[in-house]
């Protein structure tokens, strides 16, 4: 056994860490204080990065090789493995700034829109809402049928968490056989309607995508059941890695605050209640770090890793949530303030726990697999 990172993995991890520290965490203060004191009552407008700042950061990230992680170098991507990708997303998870490399599933390489996606001319959104309960496509209501020159899709409405993009990647099932397949469809395809619905508790939006007899060319279908599952697993790994970063940041800042904050004549760090919270958290975090890296390592080795990715996601998201919770609790009143990142991590981690398989469903599936002797 060997738990050493390769030289290459170490290098990209350090590059990402440096980028996150220098370019992102350094901007957090400005980002978090977007709201001026004494604005009219009501919630502040949704926090977001300034467009120019975002464009500048993207250019820097591209130059550093921290963009298009999944695409091969021939298509302008970084072409890194799953372990390296997890290490990169873990670094980006450390900041509350809403900026990280966009998730472009590797199977898009060579597809019709790969060039536009790689250049940033077009953006991608994953419309996988119906998989969020179990992580499997059993509840997908969208049906497809092969017709002359392509496929007809309809009729269904799916929710979209995050801003609508130019291209949608989504699963559908064949009418009759119910066989799952994966489709990539542009927003302006006839029969496809996008409706923005409102804000989410995380600093993003919720939208609806409706298909009504939407006909698409044959090359919009990118695969079948395995491809759907591989997108889910890649997302689970990405979320798990991000959650490790959230957890590490929260643990770090909580320890720092506990060292400095004095109550009843002693620092918080001298209090058993605080020590135990941090101790418990560190154990959780260590456990899911290796769970995540092992799942990624299996993916790199070509071994089955879907179940491991699901388990890593579940534990890491849970741990990130608990880490944000602990960081809030140790920071007290400051913890719930929007001027510090922890309440934002808390809201985000709560969302991440609900994506690509909820805890009880993943537990149940794992239990059922065990009982069936799989």
């Amino acid at each position, binding site marked *: 056994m060997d738990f050493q990172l390769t030289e290459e993995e170490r290098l990209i991890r350090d590059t990402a860490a440096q980028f996150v520290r220098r370019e992102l965490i350094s901007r957090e203060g400005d980002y978090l204080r977007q709201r001026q004191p004494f604005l009219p009552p009501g919630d502040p407008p949704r926090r977001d990065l300034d467009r120019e700042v975002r464009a500048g950061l993207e250019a820097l990230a591209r130059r550093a090789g921290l963009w298009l992680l999944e695409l091969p170098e021939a298509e302008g991507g970084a072409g890194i493995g799953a372990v390296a990708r997890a290490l990169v997303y873990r670094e980006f998870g450390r900041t509350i700034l809403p900026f990280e490399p966009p998730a472009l599933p590797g199977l898009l390489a060579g597809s019709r829109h790969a060039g536009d996606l790689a250049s940033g001319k077009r953006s991608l959104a994953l419309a996988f809402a119906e998989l969020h309960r179990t992580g499997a496509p059993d509840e997908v209501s969208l049906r497809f049928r092969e017709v002359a020159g392509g496929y007809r899709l309809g009729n269904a409405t799916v929710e979209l968490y995050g801003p609508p993009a130019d291209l949608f990647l989504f699963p559908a099932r064949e009418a009759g056989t119910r066989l799952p397949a994966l489709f990539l469809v542009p927003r302006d395809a006839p029969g496809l309607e996008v409706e923005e619905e409102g804000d*989410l508790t995380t600093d993003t939006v*919720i939208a609806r995508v409706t298909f009504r007899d939407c006909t698409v060319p044959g090359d919009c279908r990118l695969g079948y059941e395995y491809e759907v599952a591989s997108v889910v697993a890649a997302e689970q790994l990405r979320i798990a890695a991000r959650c490790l970063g959230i957890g590490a940041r929260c643990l770090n800042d909580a320890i720092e605050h506990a060292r400095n904050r004095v109550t009843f004549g002693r620092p918080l760090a001298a209090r058993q209640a605080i020590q135990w919270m941090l101790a418990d958290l560190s154990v959780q975090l260590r456990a899911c770090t290796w769970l995540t890296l092992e799942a990624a390592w299996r993916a790199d080795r070509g071994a089955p890793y879907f179940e491991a990715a699901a388990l890593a996601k579940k534990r890491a998201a849970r741990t990130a949530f608990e880490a944000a919770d602990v960081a809030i609790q140790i920071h007290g009143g400051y913890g719930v303030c*929007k001027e510090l990142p922890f309440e934002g991590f*808390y809201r985000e981690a709560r969302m991440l726990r609900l994506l690509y398989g909820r805890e009880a469903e993943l537990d149940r599936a794992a239990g059922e697999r065990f009982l069936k002797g799989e």
Partner: protein
Amino acid sequence: MGRTRGCACGTVDFYLSEEEEGLRRAVEAFVREELSPLEPEFENAPDIFEGSRWKSRARRSEDPEIRRFTALMEELEKKAEARGLWHLDVPKQYGGLEASNVAMLAVTEELEKSSIPFELGNHVSNILYACRGEQIERFLLPCIRGEKTSAFALSEPASGSDPSMLRTTAAPDGDYFVINGTKMFPTFADVADFVQLFARLPGTEGRDGVTCFLIETGTPGYRVVRSIATIAGTEPCELVFENCRVHRSQVLGEVGKGWELNQAWLGARRFQVGIRSHGTAQRVLRVLKAEGIVPENRGSFAERIGGFLGELAALRSLTYYGAWKADRKLDARGEAAAVKLFATELLHRVIDFALEAAGPSALRKRHVLARAFRHARSRRIVEGPSEIQRHILQRILFREGAASVEIG
């Protein structure tokens, strides 16, 4: 509770007294006849109508939508007053009903059955009843009449859970005190007419020398620097005092005896937190049921709901027990800490489960579960974080032994 019965004195009796039951029924009728019919309308109310936040700067808002809901709230207040459901916990000498802690729990429990964040006022910060002489007309009565509001300023940048570390000073200067320092997180300070400020005499430490002042907004040297957005939507403020001269007639209670006042303020609120969390948790579980989020055949979900209902019942009885002890002037600090800890952590677990059952679409900003989620987070901190409650409980355990958890 919910029915009255002749008091069999000397035995445990969970029924309300006849007087308390009468009050509960009146509130129940008010909720049924006035609040419930408005619920569909309030589902789409602006976020400011979550919790008590609408009483903040919303009252000065020009936004027609906010004004419309503010008007609805004010109309409800008038209706409640017309029914005699006003000044419930105000002492009789000031024209109130002087309802017991137990009765006020029953009142809140009824109100919590509605999702509309309506309160029966006017609640007056309980330490203001220490007002004497001209302070009564200047501070207390206007609050009771609803003409003035106050804010409570104890925490500081470096002193929260441990208020004995407060550093704001009040230096005597003839008939005046000169106040210097910074206060964090008083809610509503930006709209309040005056602030209840805790400061210490020079050269004192710990609980000694703490003195409470009543200081009007606009007093030279007193500034509300900013308000701070929080996850719960409340907007607590930061206050700065720079050579703020305050006349000795504005000392609440006695000079140097402010510590007892702040303890009284915090202690009295715990049981209300308990019953509120209980009510919110019940509403969250009802949402799951009403929206069909938990189908009957999903065994494990049903099992967990059943478990929560049991815990909620336990919380409710403990809360009433503590309030009853407080009414009898018995030491209820242990119950207060246990209720605060149990209630806010349980509510957190119930909402966490509800979100797990309902999925990401329930995190829509205006969804009732998302609102409950955001509110519940700060409840585990404000008015004494869970760790402080655990600390109080362990201190009581080591001081009094297991006797502290015996039935009184």
